[in-house]
């Protein structure tokens, strides 16, 4: 592999809660190549979202570092864009004005930003919606704006935190094929967090399986399915084999995590 686009070295994160220190992530060493699509799956509480926040620079690691093109990440913005589960569109701004927020905050040329935003809105299938307001759009359309906004920010790396989790099942499937198309047309590097194994397998070149708290890399699974992929792939046996394998890797962790959550809730109720 040539020099990785995104890498982490000994990345650790602990939070203080009620005076106790909770270790969320331990010693993560991950390399992601330019233009690669990598997903992270794991039981809830495995620190997937925390990992994305660290890579984005929204929070600082307890030790270790994340690197983009070999430079340590210290602040958000610039080469990395974050696509959140909630679209977070500013309700008082039109679709176009939401899409250009990245260049606007960085004081870039607004004329150029508008052209760029229009072309990315067309790419995500929202041509003609520039002047609409977010509350006039469906959930799926809002997530498309969310993606167009990240692309317009000019980032090479997209961090996506369960962006389709709030969508209904059919819309989610459509958005998955849309995302693979957009990814192949733009050549961005994508780090995608999801709790849906089939989503991870369908989208990714590689799936990283995290252990539960503290989150560590348990295993990485290369997805060697041919591209371009369409939804029919999900019914093929080799697709099912990948999903099965990953599920077996995290099944025990998921059970543990549910058991722990139940115990914690009971303990909290008894207090």
């Amino acid at each position, binding site marked *: 592999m040539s020099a990785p686009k995104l890498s982490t070295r000994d990345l650790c994160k602990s939070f203080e809660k009620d005076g106790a220190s909770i270790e969320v992530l331990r010693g993560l060493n991950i390399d992601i190549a330019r233009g690669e699509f990598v997903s992270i799956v794991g039981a809830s509480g495995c620190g997937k979202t925390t990992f994305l926040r660290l890579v984005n620079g929204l929070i600082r690691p307890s030790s270790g570092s994340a690197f983009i093109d070999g430079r340590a990440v210290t602040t*958000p913005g610039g080469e990395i864009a974050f696509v*959140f589960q909630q679209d977070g569109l500013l309700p*008082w701004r039109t679709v176009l004005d939401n899409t250009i*927020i990245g260049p606007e*905050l*960085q004081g870039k040329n607004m004329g150029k930003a508008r052209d760029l935003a229009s072309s990315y809105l067309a790419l995500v299938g929202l041509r003609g919606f520039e002047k609409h307001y*977010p509350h006039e759009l469906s959930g799926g359309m809002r997530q498309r704006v969310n993606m167009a906004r990240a692309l317009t920010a000019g980032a090479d790396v997209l961090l996506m935190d369960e962006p389709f989790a709030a969508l209904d099942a059919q819309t989610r499937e459509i958005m998955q094929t849309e995302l693979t198309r957009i990814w192949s047309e733009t050549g961005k590097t994508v780090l995608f967090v999801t709790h849906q194994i089939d989503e991870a397998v369908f989208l990714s070149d590689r799936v990283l399986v995290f252990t539960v708290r503290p989150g560590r890399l348990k295993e990485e699974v290369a997805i060697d399915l041919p591209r371009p992929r369409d939804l029919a792939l999900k019914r093929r046996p080799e697709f099912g084999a990948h999903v099965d394998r990953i599920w077996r890797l995290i099944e025990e962790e998921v059970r543990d995590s549910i058991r722990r959550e139940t115990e914690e809730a009971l303990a909290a109720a008894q207090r």
Partner: protein
Amino acid sequence: MGSLGIRRWSLSFGVAAILWEAVALWLDNKLFLVRLGAIGQRFVELIQSGELMADMRVSFIEFAGGFGLAILVGISAGVVMAAFKGLRDLVDPWVSMLYATPTIALGPLFMLAFGIGYASKIALVFLTCVFPILINTLAGLKTTDRTLLEVVRSYGATPRQIYFKVRIPAALPFIIAGLRVSVARALVGVVVAELFGARAGLGFLIFRSAQSFDTAGLFVAVFILAVCGVACVEFLKWIEIRLAPWRFNNMDEE
């Protein structure tokens, strides 16, 4: 307001007018309830004598002065308090206390302090309506959706940009809602302030009509105040919907 709204309003007013006339006829007590025609006649008289315009001018100045000052001070104080937590902790108990106190009771004191002219009225109007504006401004600035803040932060927004591009626009509908609450309180402030002692004004018109058993004149003033109140509130509601249509999207329009 669509044609349906207009129909509903005229129906409602029509029924009210009929009821009014019926009760007035039945009571047959000109001191308590006069017929609508008599009120209309008194209205014309008061206009012709120039009294009404003079009273309205005085009340308008008191209202505009007090309410304008309250907007200015309420919004600025809210912005400052939102920015400085230490100051907020210090001032908050007083704001809550004064908001809950019927500050209108301080009217007589203000007459003593500022005299019978505009100053005492403006001060009292200001005091009755500044707190809802302040509290709403503060609440609007403090309750910004965390997702929105996180998103703009992830795109590299500076604290200044976060303030001007997210917090303030997000707070605007709250501020307008505060104005809507305040405007009604301001009108009450004007009337009550004038009852404590004045030389002119709609509140004073009520007072002097009552003194001379002129029930029709009293109702002229009350109706004018009611129309002004409804107009102000509806206008602010209209601005609110214009400014933040997304907040009215999921509401039950039953």
